[in-house]
């Protein structure tokens, strides 16, 4: 009985933490004024926000008396794929020159991500008619 009460409080706490981080991340996505700065804000949504919501779901299955930890799969998948998609979006930003370019490297003539044929270096910005 007492463990159920503690578990329910933990579920509520995890839900509140998760929704707080989701709000912070999305407001950051909306308010920051540089593409690379905007890239860092929604990572809080992906890791702590959704992580806390999934943790609340796991704890709630234990409170209900039918314990399962399926949600750990989603958590692991999200934690593995979030850096990869962030890396791809950062690459799009660098190639479309929409951020401050990094200084030239000391030894090579250019950075590895830009070391491609000239036709592939620049991304022409898509403009809807």
């Amino acid at each position: 009985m007492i463990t159920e009460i503690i578990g329910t409080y933990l579920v509520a706490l995890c839900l509140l933490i998760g929704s707080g981080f989701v709000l912070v991340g999305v407001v950051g996505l909306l308010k920051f004024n540089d593409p690379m700065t905007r890239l860092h804000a929604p990572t809080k949504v992906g890791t702590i926000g959704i992580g806390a919501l999934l943790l609340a779901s796991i704890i709630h299955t234990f409170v209900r008396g039918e314990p399962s930890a399926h949600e750990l799969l989603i958590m692991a998948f999200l934690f593995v794929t979030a850096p990869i998609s962030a890396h791809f979006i950062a690459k799009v930003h660098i190639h479309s020159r929409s951020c401050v370019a990094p200084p030239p490297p000391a030894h090579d003539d250019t950075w590895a991500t830009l070391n491609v044929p000239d036709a592939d270096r620049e991304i022409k910005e898509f403009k809807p008619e």
Partner: protein
Amino acid sequence: MTAATELMNIALVVAFAALALGQILAMVRLVLGPTSGDRILALDTMVINAIGLVVVLGLHQKVQIYFEVSLLIAMLGFMSTVALARFLLRGDIIE
């Protein structure tokens, strides 16, 4: 028990409201977004918020069946983000 469940119901409502507001704000960034990278990022954030909404819905209805739904959304969201970024980078998805 009643105080705890009361608090959990309030937390569920707060989580629903925060996630719905997050979807709306991400959609504003999707419409405004000056560069294509910002639009991809806003779509990625919307997918992650959708996972959160499905998880909180499963918590609210006290059922387990929404697990597969959120796992599928997570996989499709990752694939679509990578495919969009790849399309912008190379002009093609599978070369």
